[in-house]
């Protein structure tokens, strides 16, 4: 839709323009202009340093997300289906979701050192609660009418689980995955800034320490852009896969 695209571009121009102006004023000695930051970003892309950095950062992220997704969905299904399990495990995840899990990072560092393991752990504790709770809630909220319909046509319990509950729960489970990955991202960055600087976190802390602010902002900009692109991509996949369940956006 043309109008929407034009307005998005306009919006971007306004914001980046404001950044540029603020950098020229300058708002602070530590605030580079938009153009300077983009130049630094281009330099890092061209010399490949940013790709090396991301490869490093993505390791705990992908590992952590993979573990969180498998364990999280499995646990969520179990909790959703068994009231005993729900009683046993859901309070833990409910508390975990409300609590600032970042506080646990010092402990993890103490227990597992400053290497990949503790970073993976950080990603996991940030991502799992929302995945588990979303999955459990989706399973428990399967429309009763559909389950009843299944029973009326003599579906076995296994049929109902595989053909009704899981497909019905998929959109919410997927949304939970998306939120989980989002939280995992935060965990990955956090562990790089706090535990040991590696990957992109290293670029940020290092450039800050030598007052190379354009590079620092460039790195942060790239993190945000990547996170947004990836998560939006996931949303599109979600919409495509589940178009049957899409209620449609109600707009003017």
């Amino acid at each position, binding site marked *: 839709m043309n109008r929407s695209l034009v307005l998005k571009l306009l919006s971007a121009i306004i914001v980046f323009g404001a950044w540029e102006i603020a950098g020229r004023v300058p708002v602070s000695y530590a605030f580079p202009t938009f153009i300077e930051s983009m130049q630094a970003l281009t330099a890092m892309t061209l010399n490949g340093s940013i790709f090396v950095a991301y490869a490093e950062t993505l390791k705990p992220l992908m590992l952590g997300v993979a573990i969180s997704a498998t364990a999280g969905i499995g646990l969520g299904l179990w909790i959703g289906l068994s009231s005993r399990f729900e009683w046993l495990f859901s309070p833990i995840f409910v508390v975990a979701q409300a609590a600032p899990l970042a506080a646990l990072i010092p402990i993890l560092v103490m227990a597992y050192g400053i290497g990949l393991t503790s970073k993976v752990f950080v990603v996991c504790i940030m991502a799992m609660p929302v995945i588990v709770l979303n999955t459990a809630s989706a399973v428990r909220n399967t429309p009763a009418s559909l389950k*009843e*319909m299944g029973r009326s*046509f*003599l579906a076995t319990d296994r049929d109902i689980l595989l053909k*009704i509950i899981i497909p*019905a729960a998929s959109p919410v489970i997927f949304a939970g995955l998306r939120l989980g990955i989002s939280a995992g991202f935060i965990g990955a960055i956090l562990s790089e800034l706090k535990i040991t600087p590696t990957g992109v976190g290293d670029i940020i802390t290092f450039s800050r320490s030598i007052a190379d602010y354009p590079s620092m902002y460039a790195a942060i900009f790239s993190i945000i852009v990547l996170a947004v692109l990836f998560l939006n991509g996931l949303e599109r996949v979600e919409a495509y896969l589940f178009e049957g*369940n899409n*209620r449609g956006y109600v707009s003017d």
Partner: protein
Amino acid sequence: MDMSQIKDTLGDAQAVDIDSAVSVRNVSKNYGEVEALRDLSLEFPRGQLTSLLGPSGCGKTTLLKIIAGLLDATSGEIEIDGKKITGPGDDRAFVFQDFALLPWANVMRNVSFGLELRGVAKSEREDIAQKYISNVGLTGFEKAFPHELSGGMRQRVGLARALSVDAQVLLLDEPFSAVDEQNRRKFQEDLLELVRNENKTFIFVTHSIEEAVYVSDQIAILLPRPSRVSEVIRPKEFRSTGVENIRRSKEYLDIVDQIWSSLRNYVE
């Protein structure tokens, strides 16, 4: 409340010899303290459409679901062709008020879902489903999804699904209440034809008096608190007239008025 209550439109009590496909005997249903159904007995003649009509809270959907095997009766029994039922079975098929379609499956899959659950092979069940999809007038929509269909069309899918499993008893739970008026009238006409052509027993729950009188061979009036059958009406004459003339037949209008005057006290 038993068969001696069956009367024809002129008010005489008539003993009728009925070949019952479904027999409900002394069925009660309690939810804790609440008595949803109390000692209800009713016979459903084979090959005909019986309506369960009554104001909300009279237990008609509860009774239907007990017959379907989706709920257990607290006491009493239900027999289909002389055999007691113990749960859902392939001799009964249910049509839901809110359609209960799988939103992620297209029309073909939804219609063939009942057969899929029975383990019928894919090509065979799709053939059967295709036949009923045309039966209900949805040819061309096989690949459409529920959210792309209107309410009336969605209910046709639900109906086709129930017909495909070829059960001898069809249970319909206020199937047209979520459908607009024009579609509803069309459905009622189609239902009459369906009853005529298919050799099945239909049990139909509704709270619309006119709908019940229009489509039914037998109307069971249920009253609430406690839920019981207060009378059973068998319209005689207009059953054989063409569909266009039913709503103007004197018998139709008389029955509708008669039912309303007994039900109006129960409006909440």
